[in-house]
């Protein structure tokens, strides 16, 4: 009895003793990211981008506040893809580890919960992992997002569809039922109606589903011109493989919110990835100039060299989160959370990711570039106008 109580208390003590305080000349950025668990696959973009950017900034001399120079430090924990654990870890970061500012986790549902901690403790959080409008509709003051609003993900795709010949007339909209994808679907419905397109099939599936044969059969029967799909990467993978298996092939196009820009996705699907449309809020383009990396292309090269895989918009967005803090701190000339928060709200700078400027609700607005996989490569095809000629219409599976 007594021994076990002592044990429990000892455990409690250790749990708190382990977390040391920051050194005086450091600026500590705290983050709890999915390093393991179901979301780890995308979580690693944030892990790596945060680390790379912090190292890069330190190598360039750190952060100047007034006449003092600080070194950036990263305090990153693994939330194991567990929302509850991530909330606890953010509290630990804020209250015990006394980090100065917060970087975000991946995925909307995590950002949704975790940002509450930032708001509660009034420590600014800049996150590049959650795009759901839900995160930014709560009137929170301390939460900023570098992913564009989920509602508009398909806006550029739909715009492009109007300019294709023959232009698709009927559309199937398939979405997962989680926060991000419901936001996407809701916005997309509106965009589709505005563009005068007919939604012939509108199906929502359970997050994590692996079988899409029922939906695909209905899509096939409806004989739509285009499929707009939003969900998670693994689901996109299954969806495309099952499209082929069931010989579902809209003459127009099929477009996906996630997956297409990642190397993993292409690798997993092989030739079957071809012709798939996708989107990205970021391309490793030399035209995106950056104070530390030079430009986005150099960022991508360094990233690939260091981690062995290509960065995608998650990574760029994560890098922009770190840069946001540095710019804002230098502008505010202090580490005071409230002042830095105000500085973030009014910030505007060019980065490898985009021109960073947050809207009223704390979210950045960016157009999505439509991309397509052509012969195994991701090719940007449309932004405000065509960039490369899309391969269109899409040939049948057996004619590829």
């Amino acid at each position, binding site marked *: 009895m007594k021994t076990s109580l002592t044990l429990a208390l000892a*455990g409690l003590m250790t*749990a708190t003793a382990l977390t040391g305080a920051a050194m005086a000349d450091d600026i500590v950025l705290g983050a709890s990211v999915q390093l393991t668990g179901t979301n780890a696959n995308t979580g690693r973009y944030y892990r790596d981008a945060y680390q790379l950017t912090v190292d890069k900034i330190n190598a360039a001399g750190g952060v100047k506040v007034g006449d003092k120079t600080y070194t950036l430090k990263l305090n990153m924990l693994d939330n194991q893809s567990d929302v509850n654990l991530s909330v606890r870890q953010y509290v630990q970061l804020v209250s015990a580890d006394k980090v100065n500012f917060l970087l975000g986790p991946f995925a909307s549902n995590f950002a949704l919960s975790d940002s509450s901690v930032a708001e509660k403790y009034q420590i600014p959080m800049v996150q590049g992992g959650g795009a759901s409008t839900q995160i930014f509709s709560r009137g929170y003051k301390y939460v900023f997002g570098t992913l564009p609003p989920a509602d508009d993900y398909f806006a550029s795709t739909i715009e492009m569809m109007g300019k294709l010949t023959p232009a698709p007339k009927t559309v199937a909209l398939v979405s997962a039922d*989680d926060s991000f994808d419901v936001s996407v679907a809701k916005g997309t419905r509106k965009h589709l109606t505005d563009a005068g397109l007919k939604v012939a099939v509108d199906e929502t599936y359970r997050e994590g589903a692996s079988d899409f044969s029922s939906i695909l059969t209905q899509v096939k029967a409806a004989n739509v011109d285009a499929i707009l799909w939003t969900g998670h990467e693994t689901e996109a993978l299954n969806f495309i493989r099952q499209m082929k298996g069931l010989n579902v092939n809209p003459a127009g196009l099929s477009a996906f919110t996630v997956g297409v820009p990642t190397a993993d996705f292409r690798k997993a699907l092989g030739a079957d990835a071809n012709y798939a449309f996708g989107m990205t809020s970021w391309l490793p383009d030399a035209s995106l100039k950056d104070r530390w990396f030079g430009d986005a292309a150099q960022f991508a090269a360094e990233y690939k060299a260091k981690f062995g895989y290509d960065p995608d918009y998650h990574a760029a967005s994560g890098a922009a989160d770190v840069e946001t803090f540095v710019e804002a701190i230098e502008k505010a000339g202090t580490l005071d959370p409230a002042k830095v928060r105000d500085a973030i709200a009014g910030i505007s700078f060019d980065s490898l990711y985009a021109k960073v400027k947050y809207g009223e609700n704390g979210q950045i607005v960016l157009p999505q570039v439509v991309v397509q996989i052509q012969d195994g490569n991701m090719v940007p095809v449309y932004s405000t106008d065509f960039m490369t000629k899309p391969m269109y219409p899409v040939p049948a599976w057996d004619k590829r």
Partner: protein
Amino acid sequence: MKRLILPLAVLVALALAVLPMVGSDTMVQFGINALLLATLAQSWNILGGFGGYVSFGNSVFYGLGTYGTAIAMTNYNLPFGVGLVIGVILAMTGAALVGLPILRLRGPYFAIATLGLNGAMMAIFSNLPIAGSNIGLVLPLARNDAMFYELALGLLVVCTLTVLWISRSRYGMGLIAIREDEDAAGVMGVNATLWKVSALVLASIFTAVAGGIHAYWSTFVDPASAFDSTLNVRMVIMCVFGGPGTVFGPVIGSFVLSAVYEVLAAQISTAAALLFGFVIVLAVVFMPRGLADVVKGGRAISWRYFIRNIRENRL
């Protein structure tokens, strides 16, 4: 030894009560979680430990408490207290309704039915617009962790007192009799159906309140976290690790495991879950009757105790 337990427990409770005034925020944070988990393990103990019915459906009541509170607070702007009450009423009704048919099942079939119930419940709530479907609900923000801490502590104390009462009352004797031999208990006059269903309902109350507190504290609920069957497995593990059917075993078991987990998570982040898995496996092999049984043996415990446990259960 035996006489010391109660005063010691009171002391520990008092010490825990002042923690928010002296401890760090993380400590409080960890405390809220540990206390809520302990409450869950303790309320699982009522039917599982005393009645011998292994439920994997207590997370249903946790979810109902969570959603009762969340729906009341977000959709109807009701105060937290009212939300809790609504959550509890939902959970109790649920417990009474499902208790009757599924408590007729025995052994693994009861356990499996409750597991299925949890899965079905999660799927149902992810389709309920009033519950925010699968997206979930965002609750208003309360910057008062000390309050959540004291609430959680209070709940655990009340729950433990209830279990203490059960362990010494006619009611508890009936439950234990059912656990040991349901037929014999019936022949001796125990109305097994009434006892089992009421135990489930009783457990549902504390479970639901814990869910409600957690919902308001974390400000966000969704079906996956509200009807999390691994949460239920954790309740079972913590209760069984500590000693099912004892008054303090589940509390100690969950404190110890929470601390172990927290330390592991802080120390070796990625391998924490892996090691936690090993802890469970080893615990089942070496101390199948829980910490309480180990402690009961006092100083006499040696490696022989563990060997004997293996002897008893191996093929």
